[in-house]
């Protein structure tokens, strides 16, 4: 069976060939969806049970030990905290809260039974981001499957600061700000995540126990 391409068929194919444009947002959504899928798999109960309690305990202790170093640095250098990013009069920024809480967690770690991992109360964490010209800003991270629908930020018209208070479980979280539903931006005042997924910018948030 021959494939006779005539002029008409060439014109038809020529009209169908141009690649669609304007899909940058959709492409970014693909990467976020895939990252969310990875996160779901990573956190699925089946996989968690496979790892075993001892592995979790070692990993948790190592993570919290690293967090303790971060917390100590932040506590010793209060000028690097979120003070500069919040409105006048605010004095309980997220990183400082997280640093104190993580340091406290590390102190508890030595005397805690690994089986007590289930106790993980949600902690209120305020995030603040300066973006005076943005129309919308949302917080996306591993705690909401990188879906910004659940964490819109509120803009203070005087300062141009966006803020949101999240309820997060104790532990290490990676997050970023989604500006105008298009641009993913790392929190410039928080530690950069070394394991940023899919090249996506990410910042680290450490949440301790109450």
């Amino acid at each position: 069976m021959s494939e006779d391409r005539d002029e008409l068929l060439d014109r038809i194919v020529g009209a169908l060939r141009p690649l669609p444009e304007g899909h940058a947002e959709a492409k970014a959504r693909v990467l976020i969806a895939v990252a969310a899928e990875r996160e779901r798999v990573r956190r699925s109960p089946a996989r968690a049970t496979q790892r075993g309690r001892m592995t979790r305990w070692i990993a948790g202790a190592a993570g919290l030990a690293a967090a303790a170093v971060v917390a100590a640095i932040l506590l010793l250098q209060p000028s690097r905290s979120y003070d500069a990013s919040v409105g006048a009069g605010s004095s309980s920024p997220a990183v400082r809260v997280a640093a104190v809480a993580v340091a406290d967690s590390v102190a508890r770690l030595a005397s805690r039974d690994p089986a007590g991992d289930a106790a993980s109360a949600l902690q209120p964490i305020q995030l603040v981001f300066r973006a005076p010209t943005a129309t919308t800003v949302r917080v996306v991270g591993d705690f909401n499957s990188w879906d910004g629908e659940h964490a819109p930020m509120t803009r203070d018209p005087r300062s141009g600061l966006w803020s949101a208070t999240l309820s997060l479980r104790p532990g290490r979280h990676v997050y970023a700000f989604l500006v105008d539903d298009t641009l993913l931006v790392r929190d410039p005042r928080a530690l950069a995540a070394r394991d940023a997924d899919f090249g996506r910018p990410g910042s680290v948030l450490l949440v301790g126990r109450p």
Partner: protein
Amino acid sequence: MTLSRPLQLVRDTGTEADVSREPRSLLVHAAKAGDVRAFAELVDAYYARCLRFALHMLSDRSDAEEAVQDTFVRLHRALPKYEEREAFEPWLFRILANRCRTAGARERRRAEVVEYGDVPERPSAPGHDNAIAWREEIGLAIAALPTDQREAFLMRHVEDLSYEDMAVATGAGVSALKMRVKRACDALRLRLTEVSGE
């Protein structure tokens, strides 16, 4: 394997993938090994082509974007099982074609219960550009093809897959695929000859 170039996730030129990128086989190999940057490069390299195919298959932008997103999520899930001796593109198009068939079937079921009245307006002003009218006619003619013929025609003539690769992508035999493409070409010629003024 580590890829050193920074990714461009939200900036897009809308052009064909840069030929200076890492060779695709290396990207696939790295992505299979869990390199998330390599996977992001694969998305960057193939997204536009996948969206083009899905748009022609589904005739709806949001349905097409959803199908492509679902394709890459499933691709990522299936990568560990991917045999690298297989060609990557037919494998990718197999997932994509499956998603488009599923989305198309869902759309047909939805259309069956929609009342008349939602027929999209088509421009008919005297100054309407002929090139736009031609593209619209082609879009209608493509949409009127049976799904298997449309799929085969697009894979062969728009995506430039070989019949052997199409067989991998569709699960159909080469002879059957050639017949589908021929019938699609005949139907398009019949419908569009008059419009094109030939």
